[in-house]
């Protein structure tokens, strides 16, 4: 029998670990994707996936079955990511955009605007600028931007995930985009011509 998320969560709450296993196997890919986009680092993303499910298991009693289990997991993962980024910032490291021996930043994977060498150069310039700009976003702005831009979540869900009012979530997206624009436009202006 195929469990729905809500039924599996209900079973897991009663101590059925196999039911929780169903949820883990079902949501691991999407949580990894979110964690990677939040951190830009594969190892950190793996750690965040583990931590997200561990916290979810411990807090299952707080899960309200009226909401979607996936959204609830996203909320936990976002908060774990914010904790991680804050800890990294405090340590004044280059993380999450460095630290590995041969770091491959996710922005290096950004599709270049075109195949010509000029466009590739401009694409790299944008990537470099974007990397700097993202580092300057606050954790909340980064989370709001990732959830909105890459995950396509509506403002209300982002607000729930971040534990803020919808207006504040909307404003965080706005501030993030505004900061990215200010940083990228000088390069983009050249690239777009």
């Amino acid at each position, binding site marked *: 029998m195929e469990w729905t998320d809500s039924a599996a969560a209900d079973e897991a709450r009663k101590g059925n670990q196999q039911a929780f296993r169903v949820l883990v*196997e079902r949501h691991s890919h999407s949580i990894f*994707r979110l964690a990677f986009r939040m951190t830009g680092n594969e190892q950190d993303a793996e*750690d965040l996936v*583990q931590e997200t499910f*561990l916290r979810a298991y411990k807090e299952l009693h707080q899960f309200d079955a009226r909401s979607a289990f996936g959204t609830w997991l996203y909320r936990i993962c976002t908060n*774990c990511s914010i904790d991680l980024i804050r800890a990294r910032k405090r340590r004044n490291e280059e993380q999450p955009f460095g630290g590995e*021996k041969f770091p491959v930043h996710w922005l290096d994977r950004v*599709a270049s605007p075109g195949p010509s060498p000029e466009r590739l150069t401009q694409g790299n310039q944008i990537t470099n600028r974007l990397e700097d700009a993202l580092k300057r976003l606050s954790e909340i702005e980064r989370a709001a931007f990732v959830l909105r*831009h890459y995950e396509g979540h509506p403002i209300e869900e982002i607000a729930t995930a971040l534990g803020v009012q919808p207006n504040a979530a909307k404003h965080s997206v706005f501030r993030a985009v505004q900061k990215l624009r200010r940083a990228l436009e000088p390069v983009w202006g050249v690239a777009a011509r």
Partner: protein
Amino acid sequence: MTHIAEELLIEAYYSDIGDVLREHLQECGECRAEFERLSGLLDSVRDYRVPERDEFYGSDVWARLAPDLPAAKPRTNWFRWWMLVPALATLVLVVFLAGMFTGQRQAGISEKGRERILLMALSDHLDRSQILLTELLHADPEIGLTGERDKARELLGENRLLRQSAAHIRDAADADLLDALERVLLDVANGAPSSNGLEMIQQRIDNEALLFKVRITGTDARRRGQNL
């Protein structure tokens, strides 16, 4: 003509806009150009690849996760090797840090070498602390904490030295984490926690996300050490 504010243009990029705005964008070349510039910029950073995970990824995550889930396994008499390793590690660390605090430079060990040793010692210490914290989270109040208490005592001295060295080199984040860890280690090492006391310790580990921070910082320290 009043132009559309940047905030509304951003909103328009992500969601359906009202008729009034749509109409304005059709009529006003300046706003349309601004909107196209914004869209082009945001489109350019939209598509990127996340490293792929195969179809068995969910099972892999479960395999790593299952041993950490509370009440999943009976308690085992673990880590007999603990009896020896921490003592040796502490001894090496004491010698190393003594040199560091007195400013003496040991021949043949560069600044980078010293930093690497310190980071690897920190990583090793946090690995062992992580195991203890996990055990504490799963501890059964009925059984008591004898084994955990011994391990906490062993880790305590090492933790103090590492905390002092982190403070010495002004690494506030590591010093704070080691301070939080030390308070838990102290409670376990000195107290004979009642079930209520154990619950408080477990709650503190949970509330401060201590296990997560220890795991992340340990991984970071190893990575930084290996990169030196």
